[in-house]
């Protein structure tokens, strides 16, 4: 008798998985393997002053937001105003990684739209981007005082996401909310 019911049971289980799968959201969203782990270290020439460098050491000891951006990235433009407002609030230092861009264009962008970053590193060949597991701009990482990645945001930030996902982590300081 059981072998006639088996297909039915198997199908029901499968359908349950598919239902849950449908509610899951974007199947292409890739969670970061660095959550809860130390952020990879980098040292990049400053976008605005190539003779100086910006590195992970610069924000060790404070909670910081690392934002990956580029001038060719349409969504980065959409996100930019939020970053300006966030910087104006003075709540958290924002460091930028200018990913696979050209220096003159990047400088012009910051000049035209404003510079919310404490400093931006110029990642011309994308090595640091790859190190951080970046695959599409904009991406933002929340890093705590010990250099551990608390959260990664894929796509542009806005106030709703900030309040819901970032603020609780900033307050608590680690990944368990």
């Amino acid at each position: 008798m059981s072998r006639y019911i088996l297909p039915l049971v198997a199908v029901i289980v499968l359908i349950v998985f598919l239902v849950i799968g449908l509610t899951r959201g974007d199947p292409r969203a890739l969670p970061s393997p660095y959550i809860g782990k130390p952020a990879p270290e980098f040292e990049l020439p400053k976008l605005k002053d190539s003779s100086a460098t910006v590195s992970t050491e610069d924000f060790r000891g404070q909670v910081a937001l690392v934002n990956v951006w580029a001038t060719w990235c349409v969504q980065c433009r959409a996100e930019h105003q939020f970053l300006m407002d966030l910087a104006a609030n003075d709540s958290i230092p924002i460091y930028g990684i200018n990913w696979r861009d050209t220096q003159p264009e990047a400088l012009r962008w910051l000049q035209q739209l404003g510079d919310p970053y404490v400093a931006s590193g110029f990642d011309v060949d994308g090595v640091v981007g790859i190190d951080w597991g970046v695959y599409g701009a904009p991406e933002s990482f929340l890093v705590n005082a010990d250099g551990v990645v608390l959260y990664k945001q894929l796509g542009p930030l806005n106030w709703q996401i900030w309040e819901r996902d970032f603020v609780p982590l900033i307050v608590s300081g680690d990944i368990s909310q």
Partner: protein
Amino acid sequence: MKRLLILAIAMFAVAPVAAIDTDRAFDDPELQARYEKIISEVRCLKCQNQSIKDSNVFLAADLRREIRRLISEGKTNGEIQDFLVTRYGEFALYRPRASGKTLILWIAPFLLVLFGGFAMFRVVRHRMALPIDDDSVREG
């Protein structure tokens, strides 16, 4: 459809800094073969299900470049896989590594064939014991 469209435009709005490889990566045919095999098994994370070997986007080209560097530094295939997994997770590899949960994936083909064979054995044995000559009729 719209999202696909935007994605396509965004992808090609990038200055085409790199492309499919423009030359043999390695003069040594063994290294070259190894390189080609590895890149055919790494997912292009920005694409809709393509390997970095078959993709034109700059992320794919960057990853190919990093892999070339790692091979020429003498890293093993396992170390190259670790490099990718540390940064992008297991999702980056088209060949699931045999560990814990994925071990079942690699054993499954053999398990299923064995199971099928066993089921067959039981059916055939049962049928061998039954009368063969019968009045099976078929409309002509």
